């Protein structure tokens, strides 16, 4: 076994954490280190911890939650085969299994680098829901106000984008955000933030937003050149 005390992986459901070290303090330390490195990416996302057979105590659960809270991450689910742990986790109001429809959406193979991976979703993304993904995100459906998509790569919404979208979350300024109907409350590309002018109803045509000349510019999609 290698020395990494934890593995962290972005999935469609949230961040997947697998503790490897059996020393809880080491696990927390490694997690905090990882969260610090990409704070902006993780903020507001949710975490799933896969425990296998290992037992978790109330104190350990509490310390994990406290750490996640500092980074504004929700402990969403703890997957465990240990009955005592399952009971403990449930009594803390945390899921112990993933809702069925999302379970199938496991992350693609780790063979490809993140920027070549893509997540494909077909749903309405509703207020309070968020997708955090290291690669590109394609959504067939609407992103409603109060919902957000944060992607390391590009974001394509085949529908109306009314919520928040952040492309290039790791700093890639070449990424773009496309939507059939682009009327987001806010878009971010890498470190840039764009806000729709108040009262703008958006264009009736599909638009692409990207960085041009140091700011985010949205223009109607068309054949260029």
């Amino acid at each position, binding site marked *: 076994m290698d020395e990494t005390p934890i593995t962290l992986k972005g999935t469609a459901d949230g961040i997947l954490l697998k503790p490897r070290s059996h020393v809880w303090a080491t696990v927390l330390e490694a997690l905090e280190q990882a969260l610090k490195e990409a704070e902006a990416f993780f903020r507001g996302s949710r975490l799933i911890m896969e425990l296998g057979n290992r037992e978790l105590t109330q104190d350990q659960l509490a310390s994990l939650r406290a750490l996640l809270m500092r980074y504004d991450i929700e402990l969403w689910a703890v997957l465990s085969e240990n009955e005592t742990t399952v009971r403990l986790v449930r009594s803390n109001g945390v899921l112990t299994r993933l*809702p*069925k*429809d*999302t379970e199938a959406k496991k992350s693609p193979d780790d063979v490809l680098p993140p920027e070549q991976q893509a997540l494909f979703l077909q749903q309405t993304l*509703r*207020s309070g*829901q968020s997708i955090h993904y290291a690669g590109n995100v394609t959504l067939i459906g*609407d992103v*409603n106000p109060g919902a957000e998509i944060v992607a390391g790569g590009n974001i394509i919404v085949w529908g109306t984008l009314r919520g928040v979208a952040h492309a290039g979350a790791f700093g890639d300024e070449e990424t773009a955000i496309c939507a059939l109907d682009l009327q987001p409350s806010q878009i971010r590309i890498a470190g840039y933030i764009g806000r729709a002018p108040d009262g703008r109803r958006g264009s009736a045509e599909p638009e692409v937003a990207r960085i041009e000349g140091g700011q985010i510019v949205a223009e109607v999609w068309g054949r260029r050149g």
Partner: protein
Amino acid sequence: MAGKIITISSGKGGVGKTTATANLGLSLAILGKRVTCIDADIGLRNLDVMLGLENRIVYDIINFIEGRCRFRQALVRDKRFPELYMMAAAQTRDKNSITVEDMTKVAREAAEISDFVLIDSPAGIEHGFRYAVAPADLVLIVTNPEVTAVRDADRVIGLLEAEELAPAQLILNRYKPELVRRNEMLDPDTVIDLLAIDLIGIVPEDDKVFGAGNQGRPVALDEHSRAGKAFRNIGRRLTGEDVPFEALRKQTFIQRLFGSR
């Protein structure tokens, strides 16, 4: 066969959940159905007042859960319809007095003796909401044509979908055609388009609703109330009847002139 358990929810407070619960309870009773309405808003009970049954409460839902009374004793029979019952919330307790299992047990027991069980959910998305929707076969989301209410409704629908709870249908309440005409209110199509769930009824704004609620005589009992008629239509749709939607979008000039409201 056990009856259908329907939870009335909204996310945002003050959009008409309790009004809808009381009126749908009566609408179903008018159709001859056996109905039990459960007030799940522990600590802020209102349904009894709206149904005009406040002074008949002897035991409440917490009394039953804690084993202080039998199930039937916790039910208050309506004064108008002998097959309409209400179970009151406890006013002196809070929502932590009930677990998901408790509420599920109460709802299932009520379903044994009813065709429809209506659960009036507390506002919010916390514990109260969660136990209220847990036993539901169907959740009716009440919203107003206002941006804040629609946003909260969207959040609630998202939670129901994510946790694979019951399917949701929409009641658009307090709709005012004249405000939509002046672009001061979201029009129904925009709301339905955004929320992307089935519509089960649009209830027009009706001043009679206020007085009716205060007097414990919901508008569903009022032949001449437009809101009452809308609620009765939703009741009929709940029983599976195919009731066409009234075209209350835009009244024509002539209709306005002759006051067809």
